[in-house]
C-alpha cells in the first residue's frame, strides 16, 4: 500500500492551493484528479476575472488553472491525473482506479476538494421531451472551449447566477446568440451589474418566468415558458441549464463520514476537519459555489490546519453543534464550533475566522445566533439565494447547541 503524508482529492483551486501550501511546509503531498488534465473547472472558463487575489493579475480561467498546476509542481507536489477515487475508508485509506487498474492508497490526512456540479435538468424536474441540446454551463464550456465545437445557435439560458453570465460570455465567444435568460425570481441572482452584460449582448432577461417543458424529439425545437401564470412557447435550439450548484459529494455520502443535509457537503469543524479526523475538506464541496479565489484561500487555510494536525497541534474536537432554526437558511458553515474561540497561535492559524451562510429563498429580517436562551449575535440581512453571507465567530457559553434563527419581516 502506497503511503504519503497527505492525499488531496481534486486538482481544482482549493485542492491545488492546499497541496502547494502543504508542500511548502515540507509535507509530502499527492493530488489525485479523475480528469486527464489538472486544474478543475477554471480550465474551461475561458474568461476573466481569475487570479486577482492569488497572483495579483487579471487572468482567464485556463491560464489561471495552468498557473495553479505549475505552482503546485514547483513546490514539489505529485499530481496524478486520470485517477478516480472509488471509496473512502475510515482512517484515511482510499480505493482508486486509474488506467493501471485498482489500488488502495493511504495517508495521514486526506483532503476532500471534489468541488461542485450544476443541478441537472432531470433533478429540476423540467417537463417535456428529452432531446439533444440541453446541457449545463460546464458541459457547454467544455464543448466550446476544449473542443471548439458549437452545439447550438440560439439557446435559452435558465438561471441568473454568476455562472449564467459566464455561459453568456461562452456563447459570445462561440458566436452563439442566446434568445433569453429565464429567472423564476423577481431579481437576478448575481449582483446587479451582471445584467449589463445581457443588455450589451441584446439578450432579454425574463424575470418571474420558468421553463415548464422542452419540445423536440431529437433536437430542441422550443420551450414552454410560464410567465406569471401565462404560458407561451418560445422557439430555440438549445437549453443551457445553469447554476444550482451542488457539492460533488457522492464519495462522501457513500462513506462513513457525516453529511450535512442542508449543504449536501460534509459536516466540518473550524479547521475543516470531518467526523473522521483523518479527513478534511475545502472548496466548493462545502457549500455549492464560491469564486475560485475564495476556494483558493480556503484551501490554503485548511492546509495550515492539516499541517497542525500532522504535528499533533490541532485542538481536540471539543464542540458545540450549529443548528438551523429557519427554513430560509440552507446552510451554515462550519457546523461544529469550538467552545473556546481559538487564540492566535501557529496551531490555530488554520481556523476559519467566521461563519458562512446561504439562503434557500430571498429573505430579509433579523438573523440571530442563540445558545442556552441567550442571543450571541444579532444581524440584519436582506439577501437572495446563493449570495454569500458571512458572520463573525461567536464566543460560545457552553457546549450546547447553537441555533441560527431568522425573524423575517
Amino acid at each position, binding site marked *: 500500500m502506497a503511503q504519503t503524508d497527505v492525499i488531496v482529492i481534486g486538482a481544482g483551486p482549493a485542492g491545488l492551493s492546499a497541496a502547494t501550501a502543504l508542500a511548502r511546509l515540507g509535507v509530502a503531498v499527492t493530488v489525485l484528479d479523475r480528469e486527464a488534465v489538472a486544474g478543475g473547472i477554471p480550465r474551461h472558463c475561458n474568461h476573466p476575472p481569475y487570479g486577482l487575489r492569488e497572483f495579483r493579475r487579471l487572468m482567464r480561467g485556463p491560464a489561471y488553472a495552468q498557473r495553479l498546476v505549475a505552482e503546485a509542481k514547483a513546490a514539489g507536489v505529485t499530481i496524478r491525473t486520470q485517477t478516480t477515487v472509488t471509496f473512502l475508508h475510515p482512517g484515511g485509506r482510499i480505493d482508486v482506479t486509474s488506467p493501471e487498474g485498482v489500488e488502495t492508497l493511504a495517508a495521514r490526512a486526506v483532503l476532500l476538494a471534489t468541488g461542485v456540479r450544476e443541478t441537472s435538468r*432531470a*433533478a429540476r424536474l423540467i417537463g417535456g421531451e*428529452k432531446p439533444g441540446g440541453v446541457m449545463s454551463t460546464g458541459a457547454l464550456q467544455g464543448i466550446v472551449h476544449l473542443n471548439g465545437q458549437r452545439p447550438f445557435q440560439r439557446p435559452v439560458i435558465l438561471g441568473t447566477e454568476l455562472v449564467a453570465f459566464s455561459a453568456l460570455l461562452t456563447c459570445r465567444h462561440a458566436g452563439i446568440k442566446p434568445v433569453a435568460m429565464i429567472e423564476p425570481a423577481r431579481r437576478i441572482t448575481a449582483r446587479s451589474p451582471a445584467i449589463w452584460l445581457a443588455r450589451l449582448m441584446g439578450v432579454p432577461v425574463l424575470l418571474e418566468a420558468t421553463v*415548464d417543458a422542452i419540445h423536440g424529439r*431529437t*433536437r430542441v425545437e422550443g420551450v414552454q415558458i410560464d410567465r406569471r401564470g401565462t404560458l407561451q412557447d418560445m422557439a430555440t435550439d438549445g437549453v443551457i441549464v445553469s447554476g444550482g450548484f451542488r457539492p460533488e459529494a457522492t464519495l462522501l455520502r457513500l462513506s462513513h463520514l457525516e453529511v450535512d443535509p442542508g449543504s449536501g457537503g460534509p459536516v466540518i469543524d473550524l479547521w475543516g476537519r470531518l467526523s473522521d479526523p483523518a479527513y478534511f475538506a475545502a472548496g466548493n464541496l462545502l457549500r455549492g459555489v464560491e469564486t475560485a479565489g475564495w476556494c483558493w484561500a480556503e484551501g490554503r487555510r485548511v492546509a495550515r490546519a492539516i499541517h497542525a494536525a500532522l504535528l499533533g497541534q490541532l485542538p481536540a474536537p471539543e464542540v458545540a453543534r450549529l443548528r438551523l432554526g429557519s427554513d430560509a437558511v440552507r446552510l451554515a458553515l462550519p457546523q461544529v464550533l469550538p467552545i473556546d474561540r481559538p487564540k492566535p497561535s501557529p496551531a490555530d492559524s488554520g481556523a476559519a475566522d467566521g461563519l458562512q451562510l446561504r439562503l434557500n429563498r430571498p429573505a430579509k429580517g433579523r438573523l440571530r445566533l442563540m445558545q442556552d436562551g441567550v442571543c450571541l449575535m444579532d444581524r440584519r440581512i436582506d439577501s437572495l439565494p446563493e449570495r454569500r453571507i458571512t458572520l463573525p465567530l461567536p464566543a460560545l457559553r457552553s457546549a450546547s447547541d447553537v441555533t441560527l434563527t431568522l425573524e423575517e419581516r
Partner: protein
Amino acid sequence: MDTPNLPGNAEGFDVAVIGAGVVGCALARAFTLAGARVVVLEKAADVLDGASKGNSAILHTGFDAPEGSVELACIREGYALYHQIRDRLGLPLIRAGAMVLAWSEAEVAELPALMAQAVANGVTDVQAVTAAEALRLEPQLSAKVMGGFRVPGEHLIDPWSAAHGYLLQALENGATLMRQAEVLTGRRSQGVWHLATTAGAVQAGLVINAAGLWGDEVDRRVTGESWFTIKPRKGQFVVYDKTAASLLGHILLPVPTKTTKGIVVCRTAYGNLLVGPTAEEQDDREHATLDQPTLQALMQRGQDILPALAGHEVTAAYAGLRPATEEKEYRIRTDLAEDYICVGGIRSTGLSAALGIAAHVLRLAERSYPPLENPVWPQMPSLTGEAPRDWQTPGHGGILCHCELVTRREVEAALTGPMAAGSMGGLKRRTRVTMGRCQGFYCSAELARITEGRLAQPMLGGGDGAD
C-alpha cells in the same frame, strides 16, 4: 448506417423481423439459432429506440398475469429461458424478490385472491407477510403498511443488455441488422415478400412484425390491414441517486388494478432507486413527455412508501410508451398461408416475456432450416457490478463518465463491432455514459470529442442529448 452485406439479395432472407425492440431482438436470436438467415429492420438510428427504451427493468414471474393467457405462458417460458442463458451471455440477475404491499383495508382484502392467482399461475413460492414482517424485511418502509405477500422469484435485470445480447448473438451468428430502415410497403409474389424500406429493398420468405408502438401501422403497410389498434400508454419514472439504493432490498409492488401493475419502488440493476411508472393513455406514439406535477407526485408516492427517500437526490427522469391495444392479451396472429406473423400489443411485460415470445413464435412458424453448427455466444459487458466492472481491470484508458464509472475502453467498444451504437441514446444504453447524477456536466465535452463523426445520429446536432 449499416451497409447490409445482403447474402444473395436475389434470393433474399429466410426471415425479416420488423422492429429491433426487445421482442424483435429475441426473435432474431431464436430464428438465427434455428438456422434461418435473418434480417432485422429498424427504422431508428439505433436499436431499442421505441417502447424498449423505457421500462422498469424487472424480470417478472407472471404471478399476476391473466390465467390461461398467451402472455402468462410467454412470461413463464421467457423467465425460465433467461435463467438458462444468462450466464452464457453474461447477463445480470439481481435476486431481489418482490413484495406486494397493501396500504388500505380494501387492498388487504384483495391479497388472498392475488396469492391464489399466483399459485394458479405456477408461482407457488409466494408467502403472506404481516405488516410487522414487512417492516422487519424492509426497515425503511413506512409504518403505514398493512400487509402483503412476498414473491421471491421477481428479480432485477438490466433493461437493455438483455436485448442487446439477444441481437448481438443473432448478428454474430450471421443475422443482418439494417438501421434507419423504415418499412414502407410490402408485396408478396411467388411466395417471396418484397419489402420496400428507406434503406432499400429487402426480400424474405417470412415476415414477422415486431414493430411495437407501430405494430398496427406496419400491419397495414405490409398486409393492407390491421386487426388491432395501438393505444399507447405512457409511463413516467423518477430515478434516485445511488445513495438511495441502500434503503431497499425488495421490489415493492402495489396491489395491481385492472389496467396497470401500478407504481413500483425498486432498486435498479445499476444501483439506483426507481419510482414508476405512471399509466397515462395517449394517442401520440412518438412523443413521451415528462411533466413536473406528475414527477412530483411520483416522488411523493416514493416518500410515502420509503420516508427516507426525502433526503436523496433525483438523478434522472424518463418516460416510456407501452404498446397497449384494445385488449390486455398479446396480439399474436399467424397467417402461415401468407408467411406473415404479427407479434403485437406486447405491453409492459415484453422484457420478461421476450425469450418466451420468440420461442412461441418459432413454434408457430412451423419451419425448419439447416441447423446452425456451434453457435457463438458473445459475452455482454458487465454494467451492474454483479460481475467486476471494466474500471476494476487494468488498461481501461481512464474513467470517462465519472458518475457511472464508465471507462474509455468501454465507450470505444460500444462504438465499434457489428452492433456499434448509432445514436447518443444507443451509446447511453450500451455503456451508461451521462446516465448518472451529473447528467453530463463533467463528461459531455469528452464524449462529444470521442463520438464526433462516429454516430449515425450525432451527439451535437442530433440524437438524445447529454441531459
